[in-house]
């Protein structure tokens, strides 16, 4: 006996062994179908006897093992069921012969046998035979179970008779000596009459009867017989049989204590319970007092002992097993028995949950040497050891032996290695090494389990799957190894693993699909989240020019405040929320969007990542994969992944896709807790048009000074002060949507400089009229850049003015304006330069033009885009006025404006003004220029409306007023300059240099005096003609335009003659007479009213006369002095002519 039955358990001792075998040619599947049906009859309760018979079926049994049948009767084949196919009557005799020859194999021990014939019909089938049953086909055999039951009953009858036979013949003459095969030769020539021998015979027989009783369902009898056998055999030192008797005792006790069985669910004993009678019997057994508690040890042993005092207690069972095994151990040939006993004991201990002791039994079993084992037997042995270790909860040991078994499958000595079996066994070891093939289990927290051992196992899995011819599997396992064990791999190993991975993937690329093994195990995909390692994910906003903006107004509807507080210092956020947080900016449909990842390569060599793209959900997204190559052990490395959203909606970036070493993986961010992200969801708004801007001026490289705003582009230009430059802006629609609206706005950046007039001006109407703009079309816009700055404010300039005797600028030293100018000069950044070259400081003006445009679906949603153009202008001073003063002109309504013009350029320059001749100025030359101007009536300027006046500060209002006046003066003067050498021209502004005094001079007085002589208005230059002897009516009209009532005044008209040599003759009493008074009185004149005084003169001689109207203020009582300029009365020049000689006189 060399092949142990590892599946044996203690309760097998009470079974009878029946072999079921095919005879002739029986299809395997059909045979096993019948076998299964036969095997379902595993327990038969015998009529009239309250006893159960248990049957163990085998379809394969070594006759060699049968020879041990006397030693332990459950090893004895007592029944034979043959299954055969018989097509015709002709074959029948032959089939029968075969059946008989098969019977002979087990002939010595068989109690009964049956032949099941399938397929035979006709005469032979009709005959009634007890040992043969005929069925027409494998599918039509309804009473197989019944036949088997009958068969079992017949076996029972034989068994029962044998038992009775053996049990009662103790008084018989001679008891035969039962012996095991290897003993036979030992007893040759032994004295059969000795007492010792007889006792041995008795003991062995007693043990044999015990076995039979146990099989026949008489547990109590069996126990008694076993006890007696133990006594007998102990006294004669028959160790082998003593062991057997002890084991029998244990088995009987185990059967008593654990009616549920010790084999676990593996052996299908339970199905028989469904077979009617069996169920009742079993139920009866269950109700036995103190049968089974949770730990398998009966709760109340004292009651137990009362009923079955011969039964061993749970502790004793193990003791006896130990003893039995130690006896078996004495015999080399009983190795199988010993091994099986160990296995049985372990099963009992497993039920008792005594793992430590069980492990000792198993440890012992490992060392039992069964001589030369075939490879298959070795595998079987290791597997069963593994299974038993598993049973007692030693998962690691179990895994260890399973792995040994797996290795045995592919041992080099085996000609055809069973890689498939090896792989299957290896898979089974995974839980023992706390490995699961799902990478998710490794993604969180620290690594679990024994890395060195796990790695080894994974390597073996890879190798086995490769040898199995399933490269897909090996790729999956290798990926798993790389992903989960990366921290434990040495640099050398990393290289090796990746190299072999690349080798495998060249044949079978790895993917993200779940691999399903034939036995149903699913291998989840492995995503290389560590190759490369991602540290952070950041969604990037679109470039400034492409960023969409929400129309104001509409935005507020979207505002939702969760908190009742406007501001709270406590930022409530959790990690998970952060990830789902919506990002504030928007992406635009059809526009390339970017996501920045910070990655690093943990490998000691260059890592090539291909097809790296984004995984998104929410909207249709076209990811544009990138390939990158990361240097060995790189630091953090920014990688930008791009894609184009094709529809509008909320897009969520779920992860990224990579292809490394030929393995594609989809890495989801939710599985990567270490990745920092500031939100992964962003709104994609419908598509908007896209404009490209080009200008006629060169682009400027240097950014605008206050670079808070990001500009899409900027231009720069150098201009002389007062010059105007045309800037042509071409806007091309390079998007795919129609441009529907366009708005332009500008903002001047540095407001420190005082700027006169509008810096940028344009006319949008023409451009707007071309809308909507189809894709590809373009529109142009002309912008006038006009620079008029005040360059006069230099400190040194004022110095100059003060040195000069004729200081007419009238700036008192301590005037506030002057102080302002001073401080400005100090704060000038170009201060050092200004000290170098007088008056030659370049000033800079910057402005941003913003083009708001919208169209398409995005416009419907209320979005627009901004395009901004920075305009940078360097302004060089051209001409400026160092001094301004006025001289009264001959007319009261006019005056002369004297301007000292300074040419600060390096070119020759001509200055011209309205109705004035050109003035040529050389570089850095200063000349005076006189312009005759009409006085200005500033009252005609539009008054700021009351509403605005009320809310703005008066200082500002004043400034505004001054500005308006100055620009009026400026436009009237129209001073322009021209540099012929460089063909530049521009305007010169006096705005900055005008001061209060000058302005007063230039202003029309609020009291307007009109002198009318002879019905003709008269001013300084006009000579009124009159005739001698005629009365000349003189009318003086006062119009009050001031805000207050004026007067009363007294006016005296004094005539005089100017001899043009400095002598003025006032003594004209006899040349001129007044008709009426020469003094006029003007009563109080209310605002906007006028008063007229009439008088008349009579010239007695011809000549040139002048009238000096002297003014005398009578309103002294009111205590206020009106400014003298208000009384600019013209002097009247009258030419008295000879009265024409009338023809008649």
């Amino acid at each position, binding site marked *: 006996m060399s092949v142990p039955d590892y599946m044996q358990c203690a309760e097998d001792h009470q079974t009878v062994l029946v072999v079921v075998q095919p005879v002739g040619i029986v299809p395997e599947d059909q045979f096993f179908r019948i076998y299964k049906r036969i095997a379902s009859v595993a327990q038969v309760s015998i009529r009239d006897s309250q006893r159960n018979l248990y049957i163990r079926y085998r379809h394969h049994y070594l006759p060699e093992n049968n020879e041990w049948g006397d030693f332990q009767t459950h090893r004895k084949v007592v029944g034979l069921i043959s299954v055969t196919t018989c097509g015709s009557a002709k074959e029948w005799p032959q089939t029968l012969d075969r059946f008989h020859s098969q019977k002979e194999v087990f002939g010595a021990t068989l109690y009964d046998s049956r032949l099941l014939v399938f397929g035979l019909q006709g005469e032979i089938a009709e005959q009634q035979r007890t040992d043969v049953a005929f069925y027409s086909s494998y599918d039509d055999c309804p009473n197989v179970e019944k036949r088997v039951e009958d068969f079992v009953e017949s076996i029972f009858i034989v068994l029962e008779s044998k038992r009775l036979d053996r049990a009662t013949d103790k008084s018989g003459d001679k008891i035969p000596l039962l012996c095991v095969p290897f003993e036979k030769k030992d007893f040759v020539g032994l004295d059969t009459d000795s007492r010792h021998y007889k006792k041995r015979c008795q003991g062995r027989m007693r043990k044999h009867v015990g076995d039979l009783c146990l099989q026949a369902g008489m547990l109590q009898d069996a126990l008694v017989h076993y006890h007696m056998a133990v006594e007998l055999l102990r006294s004669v030192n028959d160790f082998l049989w003593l062991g057997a008797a002890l084991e029998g005792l244990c088995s009987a006790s185990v059967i008593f204590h654990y009616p549920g069985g010790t084999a676990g669910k593996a052996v299908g004993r339970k199905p028989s319970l469904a077979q009617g009678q069996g169920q009742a019997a079993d139920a009866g057994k269950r109700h036995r007092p103190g049968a089974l508690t949770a730990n398998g040890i009966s709760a109340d042993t004292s009651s137990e002992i009362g009923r079955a005092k011969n039964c061993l207690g749970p502790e004793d069972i193990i003791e006896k097993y130990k003893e039995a095994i130690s006896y078996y151990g004495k015999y080399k040939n009983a190795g199988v028995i010993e091994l099986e006993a160990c296995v049985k004991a372990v099963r009992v201990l497993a039920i008792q949950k005594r793992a430590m002791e069980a492990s000792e039994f198993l440890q012992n079993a490992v060392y039992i040497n069964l001589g030369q084992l075939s490879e298959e037997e070795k595998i079987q042995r290791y597997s069963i050891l593994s299974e038993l270790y598993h049973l007692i909860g030693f*998962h690691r040991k179990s895994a260890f032996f399973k792995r040994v078994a797996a290795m045995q499958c592919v041992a080099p000595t085996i000609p055809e290695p069973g890689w498939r079996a090896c792989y299957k066994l290896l898979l089974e070891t995974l839980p023992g090494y706390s490995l699961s093939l799902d990478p998710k289990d490794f993604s969180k927290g620290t690594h679990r389990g024994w890395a060195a051992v796990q790695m080894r196992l994974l390597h073996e899995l890879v190798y086995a799957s490769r040898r199995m011819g399933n490269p897909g599997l090996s790729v999956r396992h290798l990926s798993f190894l790389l992903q989960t064990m990366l921290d434990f791999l040495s640099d050398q190993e990393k290289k090796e693993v990746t190299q072999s991975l690349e080798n495998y993937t060249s044949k079978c690329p790895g993917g993200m699909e779940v691999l399903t093994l034939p036995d149903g195990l699913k291998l989840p995909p492995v995503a290389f989240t560590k190759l490369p390692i991602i540290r952070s994910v950041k969604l990037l906003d679109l470039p400034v020019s492409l960023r969409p903006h929400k129309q104001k107004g509409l935005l507020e509807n979207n505002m939702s405040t969760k908190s009742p507080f406007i501001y709270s210092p406590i930022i409530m956020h959790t990690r998970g929320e952060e990830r789902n947080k919506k990002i504030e900016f928007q992406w635009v449909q059809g526009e390339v969007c970017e996501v920045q990842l910070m990655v690093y390569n943990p490998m000691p060599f260059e890592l090539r990542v291909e097809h790296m793209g984004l995984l998104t959900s929410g909207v249709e997204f076209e990811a544009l994969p990138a390939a990158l190559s990361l240097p060995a052990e790189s630091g953090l490395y920014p990688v930008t992944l791009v894609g184009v959203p094709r529809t509008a909606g909320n897009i969520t970036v779920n992860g990224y896709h990579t292809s490394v070493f030929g393995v594609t993986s989809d890495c989801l961010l939710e599985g990567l807790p270490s990745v920092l992200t500031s939100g992964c969801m962003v709104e994609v708004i419908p598509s908007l048009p896209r404009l490209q801007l080009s200008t006629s001026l060169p682009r400027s490289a240097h950014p605008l000074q206050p670079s808070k705003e990001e500009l899409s582009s900027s231009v720069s230009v150098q201009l002389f002060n007062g010059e105007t430059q045309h800037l042509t802006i071409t806007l091309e629609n390079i998007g795919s949507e129609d441009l529907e609206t366009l708005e332009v706005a500008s903002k001047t950046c540095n407001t420190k400089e005082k700027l006169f007039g509008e810096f940028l001006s344009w006319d949008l109407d023409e451009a707007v009229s071309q809308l909507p703009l189809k894709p590809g079309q373009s529109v142009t816009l002309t912008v006038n850049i006009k620079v008029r700055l005040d360059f006069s404010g230099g400190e040194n300039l004022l110095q100059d003015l003060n040195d000069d005797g004729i200081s007419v600028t009238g700036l008192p030293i301590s005037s506030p304006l002057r102080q302002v100018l001073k401080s400005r000069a100090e704060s000038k950044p170009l201060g050092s330069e200004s000290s170098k070259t007088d008056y030659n400081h370049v000033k800079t003006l910057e402005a941003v033009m913003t083009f708001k445009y919208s169209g398409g679906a995005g416009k419907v949603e209320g979005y627009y885009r901004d395009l901004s153009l920075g305009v940078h202008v360097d302004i060089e001073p051209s001409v400026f006025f160092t001094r301004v003063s006025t001289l009264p002109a001959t007319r009261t309504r006019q005056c002369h404006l004297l301007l000292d013009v300074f040419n600060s350029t390096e070119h020759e320059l001509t200055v011209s003004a309205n109705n004035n001749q050109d003035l040529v100025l050389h570089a850095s030359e200063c000349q005076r220029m006189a312009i005759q101007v009409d006085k200005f009536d500033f009252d005609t300027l539009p008054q700021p409306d009351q509403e605005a006046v009320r809310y703005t500060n008066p200082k500002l209002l004043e400034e505004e007023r001054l500005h308006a006046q100055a620009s009026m003066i400026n436009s009237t003067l129209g001073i322009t300059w021209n540099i012929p050498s460089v063909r530049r021209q521009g305007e010169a502004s006096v705005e900055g240099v005008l001061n209060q005094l000058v302005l007063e001079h230039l202003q029309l007085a609020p009291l307007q005096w009109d002198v009318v002589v002879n019905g003709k208005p008269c001013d300084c230059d006009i000579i009124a003609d009159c005739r001698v002897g005629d009365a000349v009516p003189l009318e003086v009209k006062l119009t009050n335009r001031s805000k207050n009532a004026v007067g009363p005044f007294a006016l005296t008209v004094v005539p005089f003659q100017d001899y043009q040599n400095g002598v003025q003759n006032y003594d004209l009493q006899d040349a001129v007479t007044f008709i009426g008074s020469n003094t006029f009185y003007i009563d109080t004149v209310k605002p906007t009213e006028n008063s007229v005084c009439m008088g008349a003169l009579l010239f007695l001689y011809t000549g040139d006369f002048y009238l000096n109207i002297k003014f005398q203020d009578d309103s002294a009582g009111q205590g206020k002095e009106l400014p003298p300029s208000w009384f600019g009365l013209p002097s009247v020049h009258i030419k008295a002519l000879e009265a024409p000689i009338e023809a008649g006189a």
Partner: protein
Amino acid sequence: MAVCIAVIAKENYPLYIRSVPVQNELKFHYTVHTTLDVVEEKISAVGKAMADQRELYLGLLYPTEDYKVYPSHMIKNMAVTNSKVKFVIVVDSSNTSLRDNEIRSMFRKLHNSFTDVMCNPFYNPGDTIQSKAFDSMVSAMMVQAS
């Protein structure tokens, strides 16, 4: 005297393992790994009763073909944590002269040295032990034998 010394974390992964025949290290990995079954069984069998005792020595686990495996189980600072760090010493079974007492003293040394490692403020509990002092102590224990 010892052929392999291992320190195993509460979560049953090695904090430290060293063996004398370096060429067959994996074998010791397997040996020590499988002993954990027995250690766990012993701990669960002894249960709470052991917490009171200062005796942390579990005794001989079992002899394998070549080596005797002695484990020691340490319950450190029961009041605060249950950091169940385990020590395993594998001893050459041919060396029969070794007494239980000597093994005990080895564990004591090992334990003291481990405590020193834990006291290092730069050591993160759960990391593999890379202390030179610990290493040299282990080497000393191994050399002593051969």
